[in-house]
Structures are given as C-alpha cells and as structure tokens.
C-alpha cells in the first residue's frame, strides 16, 4: 500500500481520494484510471470513510489553529511591531506562516474542507493579539505562552491518537506534526524567557486564553 517512490509524472493523486464516499452511492465503482502514486504526500490514501473523516477533522483543526496563531502574531505585531520585541515576534510569526502554508498545501491536495469559522478566528485572533500586546511586551509574551501551550498539548494528543491507531501508516503525518509541535514548544519557551510571567494577572489571563483555545479547537473539529 505504501508506495514511497516519487513519481516523475505529476499524476493526479487526488484520484486516490475520489469522493466515492457518498453514503448512498451504491452505483458505479469508481474507475481509477491513473496509477495512484504517492508522490511526496503526507497522508496515506484513506482506506474507508471513517478514516477520511478522522484525518479530515484533524487537518481541519490544525489548519484553523495555525491560521489563528498567525492572526494573533499579526495583532501583536500591529501594536508592538516597532518596539524592541518586534523582531522577536516577527521571527515567531514567520515560523507560523510556514506552518500555515504547509497546511494550506495539504488541505488543497487532500480535498479537506476548511472550517467555516475562519473569518471568526481571523478577527478573534487579531483582537486577542492586539489586546494582549496593549498590556505591553509581557502581555504579548503571556499570550504567546498560553496559546503555544494549548497548541502543543493539542498536537501531542493528535500524535497519541495516530500512534495508537497505526504509527507506520501515518509516519509522514506524525513527522510533520512532531516538527510543528517542537516549533510551538520553542515559542512557548521563548515566551517564558521574555518575562511572560511578570504580567499582572498572569494566571487569570493564561487560563482565560487557554479556555478560549480549547473551545476553538472543539468547534473547528466539527464545523
């Protein structure tokens, strides 16, 4: 099942994901004309509807998470962009942009539906970033710490799920998620180094932000 060879021809792998997963489709067996070659693809061809649904929802929420993180950093940059912490936030933002781009590619390739609430996360993320940045550099760092902690916890639970299911089947996906999780943990540690904990009401802020993140993750998995 795992064909690791890179195909020279840019064949349409999407055929492996052809939407014959309509529930009542008793009709025609999809004739998959071309070779379903795994050109460097992160996901294995789904073997049934359930697996596709699970992978879809995982990718959907990951994409929403990276999108939200992007907007948070954008908000922070809008306020603190010209201060001393500007370059630091910019660096973290650039890494998040890379993550988002990667997820965009995966979603497009595997025909995963993005979450409907993206415009909401857009506004909410930017507002969160901007508001916490208004509390100063420490506020922005505290927000970063809270969000990155939520995200890395979320990635960890995804890694656990995939490992429990079938680690060999999902090797590439696991690798990707591990890489991103390591980046997020790095951001978390950077935030702590830069006096995140010295913001007044740090615990309150952190709890509130993490509760918001959990809710966002829950909703994005479904909608």
């Amino acid at each position, binding site marked *: 099942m795992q064909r690791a060879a890179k195909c020279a021809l840019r064949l*349409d792998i999407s055929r492996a994901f052809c939407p014959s997963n*309509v529930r009542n489709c008793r*009709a*025609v067996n999809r004739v998959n004309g071309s070779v379903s070659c795994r050109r460097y693809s992160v996901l294995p061809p789904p073997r049934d509807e359930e697996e596709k649904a699970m992978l879809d929802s995982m990718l959907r929420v990951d994409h929403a998470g990276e999108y939200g993180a992007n907007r948070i950093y954008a908000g922070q940059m809008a306020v603190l962009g010209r201060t001393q912490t500007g370059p630091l936030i910019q660096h973290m933002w650039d890494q998040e942009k890379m993550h988002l781009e990667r997820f*965009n590619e995966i979603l497009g390739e595997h025909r995963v539906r993005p979450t*409907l609430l993206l415009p909401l996360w857009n506004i909410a993320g930017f507002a969160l970033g901007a508001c916490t940045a208004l509390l100063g550099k420490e506020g922005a760092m505290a927000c970063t710490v809270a969000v990155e902690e939520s995200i890395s916890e979320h990635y960890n639970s995804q890694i656990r799920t995939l490992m429990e299911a079938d680690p060999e089947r999902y090797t590439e996906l696991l690798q990707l998620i591990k890489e991103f999780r390591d980046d997020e943990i790095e951001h978390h540690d950077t935030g702590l180094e830069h006096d995140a904990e010295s913001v007044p009401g740090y615990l309150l802020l952190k709890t509130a932000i993490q509760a918001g993140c959990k809710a966002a993750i829950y909703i994005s998995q479904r909608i």
Partner: protein
Amino acid sequence: MLCMYRNASPLWLDMAALIRGLRAGRALRGLGGVAVQGTLSPQCSNVRRGFHRAALLRLASDSKSDTSVPPPSYREVHTAGESSSSSAQGESSEDAQPNTSFQDQSGEHGEDYETEEQLQARILTAALEFVSQHGWTVEAIAAGAETLGLSSASTGMFNNGAGDLVLHFVAQCNAQLAETLAEQNNQVQLGQAESKKTGEFLKDAVETRLRMLVPYIDTWPQAMSILLLPHNIPDSLKHLSTMVDDIWYYAGDRSTDVNWYTRRAALTGIYNTTELVMVQDSSPDFEETWAFLDNRIKDVVNMANTAKQVQATGEAVVQGLMGAAITLKNLTGMNQRR
C-alpha cells in the same frame, strides 16, 4: 424450448433444463437483448416460480463470474433476502454445459458473492429503463427486477421506494461526471489537451451533468420533488455537495479560506437554477438552458472579478490615506522625535 421439457421430466432434470434454458437466455441477454429475456420469462414463469422455492442458491452472482453452480442437493438456504431474490438470478450465471456444472463442487462462498447492495444497484439500474413508462415509482423498480429474473416482490428490499431509485440515479450520474472530469484532467496533465478557463470549465461540467438528465427529462420534475421529501433531503444534499466539490476541485480550486464555501455555494445555486430552467425548456436541444447557464456563469465570474478589484482598490485607498496622514503629521511637525 424450455417448456418442452417441463411436462415430461422429473424434478432434477427439470432443474438442469432450467439451467440450460436460463443460460441460453443469459447468453442472449449478453447480446444486448433485454427484450429477449422479457419474452422468455412469461413462457417459463411457472418453472421459475417452482424453482424459486427450491432456490437455495446464494449464488446470485455476477454476470462476471463463471463459477459453476453446485448441484441442487449441495446448495444451502441462505438469508431469505438473498435466496428468494437471487434464485433464478443465480442460475443464469452459468455458461458451461450442464455436465460441467456438477464438476466444481468447491466453495459456495467464492469472492463473487454478490452483496445485497450490489444486487440492489443492479435492480435499480435495470429499473431506470422503465422510468419513462412508470415514472419514478416502485412499479419501475418492480419492472426492473423482473427483467433480471426476480420477482416483483423484491421491491420490498427498498425501504425508501422511489427515493432509492432517484438517489441511485443521481449517484450514478455524479460518479460518471467525476470519471469524465478526472479523465479530462488526466489529458490536460499529460499535455494532450488544453486546460480551460474556469468559467468555461464550470459551464462544460454543469452541461455534461445536466445532459445526463435528458433521457428522463419528462419525468424529472417528479424526481426532483421526491428528492425534496424531508427524509431524502440529507442524502440529496450530500450528493449535490459532493458533485459541486468534484467540479470545483477539477476546475483547480485549492482555496482553504472562506472562498471554499462561497464558490461552492455559487455553483450550487447555478446548478439548481439551471436544472429548473431545463425542466421547462422546450427549445431544440435545450439551447435556452445552455444560454441561461452561460449567463449565470458569466455573472459569477464578473462578481468574482469585481470583488477582487474592490479589494485591490480598497487596499490602494488605505495606503493612500496612510500616506496622507503621515505627510500631514510631518507638515504640522507632530512627527518629530523629542
């Protein structure tokens, strides 16, 4: 020919003869004569009915399978649904002479065991031919079942009745469309065909899909109303959304933002309105429908372009305002560092 044997022979010869007869019927059918099968059945319906009872073959199987039927004494009764409906059916899957049918007595459960779903699909496909006669109704399904040699009581398998028939047809059309689009995509990727612009691609895809309705266009309003029944709505929406997703995917849409939703919503609107225009269109070859489709697609493409332009203009305006504000600050001296 079959009926000559009927009165003269004991039961097992009867069955062997039936096998032969049905094989002959099957071979003839293979030549494309559904009508032939039709004419055979009334003559031999009595035999067949008697056969139904002895049935026990789950063989049912496929026209593809050439595995021989084990002799009657070795068959076992299987689930009621399979057995009664697939009895005469199973017989007709033979090609070999009667002698060889007793030779292979191995597995009765080969991989060519036809699932109930596959059988239902075959019945519904056969039923489509009777839609012009009976409409999208259970009678059409019954007629379809009869052409396959099953009793018309097999419509009991379909809990949703006519809804099953319509949904099957829709699924079949969508699958066909997806195949066509995939094939075209393949051609483009191999460099054997030119890639079309989005508007043209959408128009061609929707037209291809709607043309599949042409043979059934007279009864299509009935089908549409069946699809709108509350218990059918989830399924019909799912079929519709899958189809629209397919079309946009092959049109090259890889968006991962809210555009994903707006594009699909737009195309759904276009498809539904064009379908409505089509059912009441009386122009030759539905010219008016295609013209309508063309105009709607143009509208959507225009709107998309306008939206892009508005966004670009908006950004430019904002830049201009920012520049003006900074200039003012500089002029009034407010921007000086102290």
